[in-house]
């Protein structure tokens, strides 16, 4: 029984590096988030409204791609090596994918930041979704492609480790953490092919001037083919931590290993053939395809609802082992002093709330009510912004000592940090949801128009105040988090004060489940078939309507647009 850094010193270095990259992205992303909150609500303006979207692009890309996915590769590397009890096969290969991911991020960031500097004739204010014909500098697309290829190679690394283990253990069940990594990578390969094709075949040649047009609806559909699965790519490492780390820190065991496997298989099968639910209000796609995407999405609720039960039951098991009693009084017996536990538990509570707003988003016609409003921003700040981000931060308090050998510094601060995040998000997401119901749009620098929004409750000023309060608390929480990280790193190495590197055992073990669960080839095959069924006809219909390269339409931004704007602005005066 020893710490991870003692067991796998080389892998610990890789995991550390990936985590530090994630933390840098988190700090920068949070700072941009604060800028946006203060700008949007007209409290403090240090940027021009026209630059707001560049800041928003940085906020989105740094947090939902860089922060989450770098943290993911750290967690997955830990999960594979710990559960298979063997190192990665080739460290030069591992550092290659890490380098590709980092290099890709930097290349993509250059043109985005270039958009803020007048002397640099580059821009990429295309947001995380980069819908054509909004056009970014070609470097943005190259960086994005390199980043995705880096994640693919990381997957190859983990699969190679697994295959090497399999040769030595031909009859054993796949350890649960490895199972989770492999199923997640299954749908990641399947879905990211879509965005890779979109970028390499259409957007990159177009940004280099090789094509004059691209098909806006086609590239948008290819983005969302990947764009919903990517949210599960953020969520799966979170689920992994809820299944493997949370029961352990709660003092219990995982309630059921086979059900955990079923959940991950369901995500593999259903997370990709649902992307059209982001396009319910798109013209050019038949209602039937949207209805199919809606039913798939609703069934995707099942694995999350199963997770709710399994994870809460595992925590309850911990509480009862710690002496908890009663129908609900056992909640008081949980280790609330432990920021690792409290952070992850609060993240789970917020995810339950997000479940509801997500169902509304997924609800085909009810989507008219909320599509692209502030509601959606409220929703994903509860999912990726809390369920994922807060879990990652809380888990860092366990992982940092594991990968550095240094005990956690500032435990009370860490507890304060997770509580502060919960408080901040309470206010911010509440106001965003309610603002959305009043029709306030997302993604805008100035939600002040010639008409006024009429919230059912309170006033816009009150909602703005909540957003500012929440956003500020969230920023402070991030600063606290980084303080605890730095404080820990400045400390001395003392493995004797660090718990051993283990994860939760299961009450109902792997052997209780049928062996077919471990047949990953079968599940991937079914997933591919489902994706073809869900996407072949819509894509064929779109191409049939207006061709692979679309009906026309020039790239934006162009100088002529600025002139046109001035004319319009003068006309409006």
């Amino acid at each position, binding site marked *: 029984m020893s710490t991870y850094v003692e067991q796998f010193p080389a892998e610990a270095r890789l995991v550390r590096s990936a985590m530090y990259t994630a933390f840098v992205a988190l700090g920068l992303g949070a700072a941009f988030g604060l800028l946006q909150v203060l700008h949007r609500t007209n409290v403090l303006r240090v940027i021009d409204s026209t630059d707001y979207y560049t800041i928003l692009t940085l906020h989105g890309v740094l947090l939902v791609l860089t922060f989450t996915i770098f943290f993911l590769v750290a967690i997955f590397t830990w999960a594979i090596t710990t559960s298979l009890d063997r190192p990665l096969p080739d460290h030069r290969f591992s550092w290659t994918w890490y380098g590709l991911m980092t290099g890709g991020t930097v290349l993509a960031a250059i043109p985005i930041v270039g958009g803020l500097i007048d002397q640099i004739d580059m821009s990429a204010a295309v947001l995380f979704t980069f819908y054509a014909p909004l056009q970014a500098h070609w470097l943005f697309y190259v960086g994005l492609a390199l980043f995705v290829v880096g994640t693919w190679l990381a997957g190859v690394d983990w699969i190679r480790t697994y295959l090497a283990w399999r040769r030595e253990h031909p009859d054993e069940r796949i350890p649960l953490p490895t199972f989770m990594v492999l199923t997640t990578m299954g749908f990641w390969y399947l879905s990211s092919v879509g965005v890779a094709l979109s970028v390499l075949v259409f957007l990159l040649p177009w940004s280099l001037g090789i094509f004059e047009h691209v098909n806006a609806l086609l590239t948008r559909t290819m983005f969302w083919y990947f764009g919903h699965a990517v949210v599960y790519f953020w969520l799966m490492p979170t689920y992994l931590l809820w299944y493997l780390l949370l029961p352990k820190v709660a003092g219990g065991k995982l309630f059921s290993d086979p059900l955990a496997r079923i959940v991950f298989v369901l995500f593999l099968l259903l997370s990709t053939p649902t992307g059209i639910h982001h396009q319910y209000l798109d013209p050019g796609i038949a209602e039937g395809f949207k209805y199919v995407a809606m039913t798939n999405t609703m069934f995707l*609720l099942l694995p999350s609802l199963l997770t709710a039960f399994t994870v809460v039951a595992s925590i309850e098991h911990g509480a009862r082992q710690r002496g908890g009693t009663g129908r609900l009084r056992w909640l008081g017996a949980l280790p609330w002093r432990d920021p690792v536990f409290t952070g992850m538990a609060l993240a789970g509570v917020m995810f339950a709330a997000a479940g509801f707003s997500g169902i509304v988003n997924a609800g085909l016609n009810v989507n008219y009510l909320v599509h692209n409003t502030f509601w959606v921003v409220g929703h994903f700040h509860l999912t990726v912004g809390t369920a994922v981000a807060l879990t990652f931060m809380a888990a860092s308090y366990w992982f940092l000592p594991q990968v550095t050998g240094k005990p956690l510094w500032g435990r009370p601060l860490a507890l304060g940090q997770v509580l502060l995040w919960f408080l901040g998000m309470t206010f911010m997401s509440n106001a965003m949801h309610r603002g959305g119901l009043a029709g306030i749009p997302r993604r805008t620098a100035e939600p002040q128009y010639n008409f006024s929004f009429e919230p059912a409750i309170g006033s816009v000023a009150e909602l703005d105040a909540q957003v500012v309060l929440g956003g500020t608390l969230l920023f402070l929480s991030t600063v606290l988090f980084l303080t605890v990280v730095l404080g820990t790193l400045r400390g001395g190495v003392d493995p004797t004060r660090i718990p051993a590197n283990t994860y939760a055992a299961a009450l109902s073990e792997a052997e209780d489940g049928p062996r077919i669960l471990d047949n990953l080839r079968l599940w991937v095959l079914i997933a591919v078939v489902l994706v073809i069924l869900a996407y072949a006809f819509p894509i064929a219909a779109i191409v049939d309507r207006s061709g692979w390269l679309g009906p026309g339409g020039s790239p934006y931004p162009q100088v002529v647009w600025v002139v046109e704007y001035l004319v319009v602005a003068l006309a409006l005066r």
Partner: protein
Amino acid sequence: MNVHDYEKLWIGLSMVLIVLFIGSITYGSVVAGVVMIDDAADPVDPDALGDHPDFGDPGVTQTGEDTYEVHVVAFHPGFNPDVIEVPANSTVTFHVTSMDVIHSFSIVGTNANSMVIPGEVSSMTVELGAPNRYGIVCNEYCGEFHHLMEGELVVVPEDEFELEADE
């Protein structure tokens, strides 16, 4: 495989939820008559909207006793026309397309909300009631002046409504 009875119960309740959600959405479509934006309208060439019989001269046209059509061209950062005047108690079909990037056409505080994609036409029919004024926004980021993109839908009393001379 041993699944705890409580968990079986929860799986059952989860299925009830899923059926409830799909069921009420289907009710909304079939009984309440909410129709999704779809592929009914033919694609258009966003570079040649000026030559298009309807989008070449966007605006309101009357198609029946109480039925009207409104053609709208979205561009960064505005709508043409930006003020739409229609009579109360009528049925209005909006046809919206874009001459540049992806926008939206969203009538604030209502369920009329659509993406606007270059090359495609978003067609949606709504039933108007009493005189009212609604804001229209673009809620899809479309460029650095996105936040300036707005319009207005003015529902005037029937007797005050006049079609603009369409020359």
